[in-house]
């Protein structure tokens, strides 16, 4: 084993201890499973809902976003497996131990991009050629071509797994602790045009009402033999979707009237909770980034 791997020892141990303590503590409280029932589109609600429930919800959104994006950039730009794995451990620690998201839920969320990662790296790992590649670690002769696994392919694959997992966990650190509404405010402060912010705020709200309408329409269609076979499914899906658009367009007018009657002048104002980023958190964030830089320069 590479002695450089030892740098993971302490972070991994801290993470494991944190998860263990968290799980034991949570064991005393009631179990949460089954609280939402199963319906499609649940995923949409869940990440945002976890953000509201997170223990880090009360931290300043700008601070959280900048920190998460910094880690994300470091994972993508540094191209360093050690840095990326450290980012994965660090973000998991922040989300699960500090943010108090149950570890099993976090694992579930981490599997969402797995299919792409598996398919996307198999393609890189396996190289096809007409002649056996020189210096391949392994090579299989199939019909009239060869499937090779080369050392560079393997290195790229391993690095890519680290980078992607580091990046996705850093992104989760932002989305699992900061509700979307606050992210829009962050974008606004980054000078994204207000028309776009306005559209985002409205779209975000309409998504939920639309999904609700859609699921009721689907129930209605199903209770009338709507999705009984494949042909009908296509038809039912299509008419549900088109009806959804018609109904929503009709609602859109009413929504505008409602907005206008409350004095809408092209900008919606939301109550923003005043949230602070305490000095301790800032110092820790800066220290962690400095540490990652140090790891990058030492273990290149």
């Amino acid at each position, binding site marked *: 084993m590479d002695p450089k791997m030892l740098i993971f020892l302490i972070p991994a141990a801290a993470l494991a201890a944190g998860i263990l303590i968290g799980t034991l503590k949570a064991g005393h409280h009631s179990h949460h499973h089954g609280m939402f029932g199963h319906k499609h*589109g649940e*995923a*949409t609600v869940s*990440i945002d809902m976890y953000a509201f429930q997170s223990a880090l919800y009360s931290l300043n959104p700008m601070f959280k976003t900048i920190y998460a*994006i910094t880690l*994300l*950039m470091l*994972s*993508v*730009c540094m191209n360093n497996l050690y840095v990326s794995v450290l980012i994965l451990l660090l973000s998991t620690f922040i989300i699960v131990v500090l943010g108090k998201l149950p570890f099993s839920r976090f694992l579930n969320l981490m599997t969402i*991009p797995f*299919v*792409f990662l598996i*398919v*996307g790296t198999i*393609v890189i790992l396996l*190289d*096809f*050629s007409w002649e056996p590649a020189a210096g391949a670690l392994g090579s299989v002769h199939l019909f009239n071509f060869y499937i*090779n696994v*080369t050392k*560079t392919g393997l290195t790229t694959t391993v690095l890519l797994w680290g*980078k*992607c*997992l580091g*990046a*996705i966990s850093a*992104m989760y650190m932002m*989305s699992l602790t900061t509700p*979307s509404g606050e992210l829009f405010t962050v974008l606004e402060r980054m000078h994204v*045009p207000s*028309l*776009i912010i306005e*559209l985002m705020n*409205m*779209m*975000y709200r*309409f*998504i939920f009402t*639309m*999904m609700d309408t859609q699921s009721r329409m689907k129930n209605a269609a199903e209770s009338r033999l709507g999705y009984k076979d494949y042909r009908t*499914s*296509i*038809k039912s*899906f*299509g*008419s549900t*979707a*088109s*009806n*959804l*658009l*018609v109904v*929503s*367009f009709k609602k*859109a*007018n009413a*929504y*505008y009237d409602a*907005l206008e009657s409350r004095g809408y002048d092209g900008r919606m104002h939301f109550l923003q909770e005043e949230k602070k980023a305490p000095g301790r958190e800032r110092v820790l964030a800066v220290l962690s980034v400095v540490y990652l830089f140090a790891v990058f320069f030492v273990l290149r």
Partner: protein
Amino acid sequence: MTKKEGRWMSVSIAAAVYFMFGQNALAMHIMEGYLPAGYCIFWGALCIPFLVYGFIKIRRIVSENRRSITLLAMAGAFIFVISSLKIPSVTGSCSHMTGTGLGAILFGAFPVSILGIIVLLFQAILLAHGGLTTLGANTFSMAIAGPFVSYGLYVLGKKLKWNQKVNVFVACSVGDLFTYCVTAFQLALAYPSETGGVAASMVKFLGVFAPTQLPLAVIEGLLSVVIVIALESYATPELKSIGFLSDTPVKGESVNE
């Protein structure tokens, strides 16, 4: 092959089939962290002119008629919702529409580029499909390349007086296929094959996503036809009454008269 080997073989084939066919078709979103930094910037930069023009267009629509902002938002939410719904699929897998091709036909290609990037951002934040670093690449393939091809084909078909159903079907499914090819190209460009370069790598990426993307293109086309036909028969007044639909080819007369 011994019995044990046979069992392992069948397990591995089942796993392969699961990953190939059982994969969520949203898997075509390039995931967070997958592209090297240079490519993230490159594809993002390529999107900028389209997005700027899209923004100008949307701003014009809104300044002409203030009410259209809720409609635009509804249109964007609609694209998000139909792309997040499970659609009926033959293989029993969980597939989703892209929705942007249909959006381009209904709302025009430039506004859809802006709505598309917002939808992709939501998908990255709320669903963890796609990512922030790969937002540029995903926007180019799904909110720009695909919709523009769909829109172009649709306008062309109208000019050539194709049958409405055929026209929508061709526009949406070819747009979908184009998105799939562009994504494969983006992936191949970032990770060229050691022996065959970008071309060989592209063939590999096309191949590995073909089992989900090819049937999906057909289903997307079929569904879009059903949706457009239903819209034109039930919602012509709505579509006409909204100022912001007036510059798109959907006017309803062609089918109803």
